[in-house]
C-alpha cells in the first residue's frame, strides 16, 4: 500500500466522493485561486494546497471561490445543505470562526433538532488548527472545545493521513454538520493509505499504542507527540497506552474508560488553554464514570491560559511539548 500525506489523503477523499456524488460542492476563499486574475485559475487549491487539482477536475460550479466573507460562506453552506446540496465550506484558519460563529452554532447546528427532526444539514466546515507555525495569536488556535460543546455539531480531529481520509468520507456521507479540523503541522506527515474509499465511524477511538501502566489520551496534532513520549518512557519500563479519540463529538467514552480500567492512570494531552478544554472534559468523565479504576490523580498537559505567542521560544513552550508531557507521565507513575 502506498504512503500518502495527510494533505493528499483529504484530497483523495474529497475527489472520490465528488465523483460519486454530484451534490458535493466546495466553497471558500482561494479554494481554486486566481479568479479574475491575469494568470491561471485553480493554481492555489486552498492555501495549504489540500484542494490541489479539484478545480481542474470539477470546475467553477463545484469548486467555488468566494469573497472574504466567512459569515456568508458558512451561512450559504448551511442554506445549501438544508436544501439539497452537500457543501464543504472552508474556513482557512479556525481562528476566523469568530467572524461567522452564529451561522455555525445558532443556524447549522440547530436545524435538525429545532425543526423537529425534519431538516437535514449535510455540510462540512474544514478548518486548520494548531500552533507551531509561528503564525501568532490570531492564526494558531485550535478552538475544538468551542465546537465540541455545541449540540448538533460533529467534531473531527484526524491525527494521521489514514484517519483523515476515512473520517472525511464518513463526514461526506452523513447528514449532519461536521467540523473537520485539520492540523497544519500534520499536512506533510505520511502513513499507508488505501486508494479505495473506506469509512471510519464517528465516535470510535483508535488505540494508537497499547500499554498497561498508564493511559494517554491525546487529540489531533497531540497524538504524535503523545506517541513519541510513550516510546521514550517505554525505555524506562513504563508501558503507556495512547488513545486517539478521533472525534471529540461524538466521544468514545467506552474505549477511554476501558483503558483506564486496565492501567489505572491517565494523562490528557490537549492543545488548548486548560479551562473548559477536552482535557478537563475527559478528566471529568473519567472521574465520574471510572473513579474506581484510578490509582493516581489525573494529570492534564495543556497550553497556558494565554493567547498564542509569536516568538518561537515562547510558542514552543506554550504548546504541550515532549518535556511537559513526559514530566506529567512520570509524576502520575510516581504516585502511590
Amino acid at each position: 500500500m502506498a504512503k500518502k500525506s495527510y494533505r493528499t489523503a483529504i484530497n483523495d477523499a474529497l475527489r472520490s466522493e465528488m465523483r460519486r456524488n454530484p451534490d458535493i460542492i466546495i466553497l471558500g476563499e482561494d479554494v481554486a485561486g486566481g479568479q479574475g486574475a491575469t494568470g491561471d485559475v485553480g493554481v492555489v487549491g486552498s492555501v495549504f494546497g489540500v484542494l490541489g487539482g479539484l478545480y481542474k477536475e470539477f470546475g467553477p460550479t463545484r469548486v467555488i471561490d468566494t469573497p472574504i466573507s466567512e459569515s456568508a460562506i458558512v451561512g450559504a453552506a448551511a442554506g445549501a445543505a438544508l436544501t439539497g446540496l452537500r457543501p464543504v465550506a472552508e474556513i482557512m484558519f479556525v481562528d476566523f470562526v469568530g467572524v461567522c460563529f452564529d451561522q455555525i452554532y445558532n443556524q447549522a447546528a440547530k436545524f435538525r433538532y429545532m425543526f423537529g427532526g425534519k431538516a437535514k444539514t449535510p455540510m462540512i466546515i474544514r478548518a486548520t488548527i494548531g500552533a507551531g507555525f509561528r503564525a501568532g495569536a490570531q492564526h494558531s488556535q485550535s478552538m475544538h472545545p468551542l465546537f465540541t460543546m455545541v449540540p448538533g455539531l460533529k467534531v473531527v480531529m484526524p491525527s494521521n493521513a489514514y484517519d483523515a481520509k476515512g473520517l472525511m468520507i464518513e463526514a461526506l456521507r452523513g447528514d449532519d454538520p461536521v467540523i473537520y479540523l485539520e492540523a497544519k503541522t500534520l499536512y506533510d506527515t505520511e502513513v499507508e493509505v488505501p486508494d479505495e474509499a473506506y469509512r471510519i465511524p464517528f465516535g470510535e477511538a483508535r488505540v494508537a499504542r497499547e500499554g498497561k501502566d498508564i493511559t494517554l489520551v491525546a487529540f489531533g496534532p497531540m497524538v504524535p507527540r503523545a506517541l513519541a513520549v510513550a516510546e521514550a518512557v517505554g525505555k524506562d519500563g513504563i508501558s503507556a497506552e495512547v488513545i486517539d479519540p478521533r472525534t471529540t463529538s461524538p466521544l468514545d467514552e467506552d474505549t477511554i474508560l476501558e483503558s483506564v480500567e486496565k492501567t489505572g492512570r491517565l494523562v490528557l494531552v490537549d492543545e488548548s488553554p486548560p479551562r473548559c478544554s477536552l482535557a478537563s472534559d475527559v478528566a471529568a468523565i473519567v472521574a465520574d464514570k471510572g473513579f474506581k479504576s484510578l490509582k493516581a490523580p489525573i494529570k492534564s498537559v495543556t497550553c497556558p491560559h494565554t493567547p498564542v505567542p509569536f516568538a518561537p521560544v515562547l510558542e514552543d513552550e506554550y504548546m504541550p511539548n515532549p518535556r511537559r508531557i513526559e514530566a506529567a507521565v512520570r509524576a502520575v507513575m510516581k504516585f502511590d
Partner: protein
Amino acid sequence: MQLSRDELKRAYQRMFTIRAFEERVEKEFAAGNIPGFAHVYLGQEASGVGICHDLTDEDLIGSTHRGHGHCIAKGCDVKGMMLEIMGKAGGLCGGKGGSMHIADLSKGMLGANAIVGGAPPIAVGAALTQKYKKTGRVSVAFSGDGASNQGTVFEAMNMAVVLKVPAIFAFENNGYGEHTAASYSVGGGSIADRARSFGMPAEVVDGVDFFAVHDAMGRALEHCRAGNGPYALEIRCYRFLGHFVGDPQAYRTADELKEARANDPLPLFRKKVTEAKLLEAAELDAIEKAILAEVEDAAQTAIAAPPPDLKSLEKDVYARY
C-alpha cells in the same frame, strides 16, 4: 496642498523607509530570520504615507495583516519593528505579536490585524472616543479590497455614519485579496460606491501618487475634523509581490507583474519634486543612504538580539491555572 521642503523630505523619508524595510524583510525571510508569514507593503508606500502624513501621534490608525508600511508611516521605530518581526526581546510587542499583530499605541498605531475586516469596527470605536472626548482627532481604518467584502466592514461603515464619528475608511485596493482578483470578488466593482451608499463621501484616489493621496486625505481630515462624520477613500495601488513573501503567483502573468512594478510611487515622487525644483536629487539620495544604514542597523541588531525571556509567556494575563 503645498508642502514645505521639510515636509516633502519627511514624506520621502517615510516612503523610502518602507521600501528599504520591506526589501530587507523579504531578504531576511528568505534567510530564515523571520518566522511565520510576511506580507509586505512594497508598491503601496504612497498610500500609507499619504494617509498618515498629517496625522499626529494622537490620531489613530487600525491596520491590516499588511501592516509594516502603516507602522512606519505612523512613525513607529524600525528597530523595534524588526525585533518584533523576528520574535525577539525588545520588539514593539515584546515578541508576542509578530508581523501580523504589531502595534505601538504610543504612536496611535492600534495594531496590525490578522483578521481580515478586524480593524474597521475597532477604528470606529477609536473615533467614538475622539468624538466623546472632543479631542479633534480622527481614526483611520485601513482595509484592503478583499476586506471590503467582510460584513464587519459594512457594519463599521454604517455605524460610523449613524454615530457621525470622525472615522476615515482607507481602502487600499491593490487589485488582489490573496490570490483572487478584486475584479472577481468585489461585487459591483466599486468600493467607493459602497461607502457612498452608506451615506459618507468617498473618493477614488491614485495610490501611486503620494500627492493625490495626501490631497484626498486633506479633504477627509477637514470633513472629519469639522464634525461631519466619516469619509472614505478607495486608494488604487499595486501589490508588487505576491500575497506573502514566497507566493509563486502563477495566477498573475509576467506582463502584469511588470506593469505593477512600472507604477512605482517612489520614482514618481522623485520626478515630481525634482522637476518642480522643490528638492534636489542629491538631497533625496542622502535620505536614501541614511535610511539604508538605519535599516541595516535594525536588521543586524534584531538578528543578534536574544529571544524573549520564557518568563514572559505568562506575563500580561490576569489569571493563571
